[in-house]
């Protein structure tokens, strides 16, 4: 493919990409696939099940092709997450690319979680709530003090330092995060809004690892969670043997951008058996 030769040529090509993305994002998300993402999960598929107490963190590695299911016991609140390439942790979740590449700030079924290297960390193969935040981060001692009048409550910033620290990583390895089950959107003026009622107890999201991952999860209320008390419910994290993607896989074929992000990702594993 050739690059355009004039500013007008670049503009026209961008407008074509924008139109394609807007048409695609306006389409209805296909219904859940009970066969590929069953609920509850059959015992035989489960690799590990972890109950993360309210306020706590958990880390796990996830092999390419396996899936992490996050289940919220108490509904909305928030499980903040970070992802690194387990084989080279300098590659990590990049909030800007994740939203920019998909022309959308909402993560839901069919969308991707992207690294800073133009590759796919994980695919969202199932999502029952549609309420996740890519824009406004997680809690800290300062936000807890502001929200609840106490700085000693557990918070996501410290949880990430602990989670990263257990793998030899530190503050420099903690970029902006994403928070599941935190239904944040913007209004017409750009104000951040919490959408009550979007996330229900028992809602879950399935994240299929597209490279070998190191994952950190922090089960702390999002700083915009309007509930007056700090009382996070347990969250369940289940790693499970998910079926291999088919040629028609929703995430791998979500868009031209997704196809190219997977081309970049698959190239990492081309030499593998």
């Amino acid at each position, binding site marked *: *493919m*050739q*690059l355009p030769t004039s*500013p*007008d040529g*670049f*503009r026209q*090509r*961008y407008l074509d*990409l924008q139109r394609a*993305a*807007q048409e695609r*994002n306006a389409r209805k998300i296909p219904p859940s696939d009970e066969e590929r993402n069953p609920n509850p999960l059959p015992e035989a598929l489960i690799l590990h099940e972890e109950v993360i107490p309210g306020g706590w963190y958990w880390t796990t590695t996830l092999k390419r092709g396996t899936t992490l299911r996050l289940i919220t016991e108490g509904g909305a609140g928030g499980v903040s997450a970070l992802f690194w390439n387990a084989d080279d942790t*300098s590659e990590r979740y*990049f*909030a*800007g*690319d994740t*939203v*920019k*590449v998909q*022309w*959308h*700030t*909402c993560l839901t079924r069919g969308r991707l979680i992207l690294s*800073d*290297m*133009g*590759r796919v960390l994980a695919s969202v193969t199932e999502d029952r709530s549609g309420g996740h935040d890519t*824009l*406004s*981060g*997680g809690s*800290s*001692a*300062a*936000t807890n003090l502001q929200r609840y009048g106490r700085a000693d409550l557990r918070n996501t*910033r410290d949880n990430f330092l602990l989670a990263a620290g257990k793998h030899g990583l*530190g*503050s*420099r*390895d*903690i*970029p*902006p*995060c994403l928070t599941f089950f935190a239904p944040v*959107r*913007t*209004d017409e*003026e*750009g*104000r*951040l809004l919490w959408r009550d009622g979007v996330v229900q107890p028992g809602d879950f999201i399935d994240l299929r690892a597209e490279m070998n991952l190191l994952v950190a999860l922090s089960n702390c209320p999002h*700083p*915009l969670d309007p509930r007056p008390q700090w009382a996070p419910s347990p969250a369940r994290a289940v790693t499970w043997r998910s079926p291999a993607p088919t040629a028609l896989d929703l995430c791998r074929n979500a868009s031209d*951008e997704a196809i*190219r*992000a997977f*081309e*970049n990702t698959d190239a990492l594993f081309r030499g593998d058996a």
Partner: protein
Amino acid sequence: MKSTLDPKTAIHDEIIPANAPWSRRLARGETMRIIDLEGQQAVDTLFYRADDPSERYSSQETLRAQGSAYINAGTRILSNAGNVMAIVTADTCGRHDTSAGACSCEANTVRFGHHTRYMHACRENFLLELSKYGMTKRDLVNNINFFMNVPIAPSGEMVIVDGISTPGDYVELRAEMDLLCLISNCPQVNNPCNGFNPTSIRVLIWRAG
């Protein structure tokens, strides 16, 4: 919101050419003005605490604290530790992005095609500037895109559209701690963030008033 500072009293006055990287330390209390000389020019900017660069700009802390998705006059620029790094003291443009991140060769391949890999990009600029201070890609986080117009719709849709800055528009920040400031004068021509024609910018710095 306009500034009352007089360019004649600035202690530093520099043109950053189109496509180029730049960095400089800013002492607490100093004010930096970034002027979009020809309009519609994205200025990718990062801040680090001068004496401990593991404390750095946080787009998410900044947005969460102000409760809205864009940077403008009055925005308190927050660090990953929740401290105020700088305050936007003047702004004649009105809206700046901090959610879309900087362009990179790798992201360009995904967004615009593999044939765009070998085009200059902001994260190339940032990596070179970071290397002067012993930092690496680990330190490269979501930045501020001054003069870049990226509306986020209530639906969540997010599109980089034509900039609203006109020639001479500026943004001004007062450092609230000793800072290291990195700039990439954005070279992107695959989207409208630079009007498909990257141009030079001007940076002025005033001593603490």
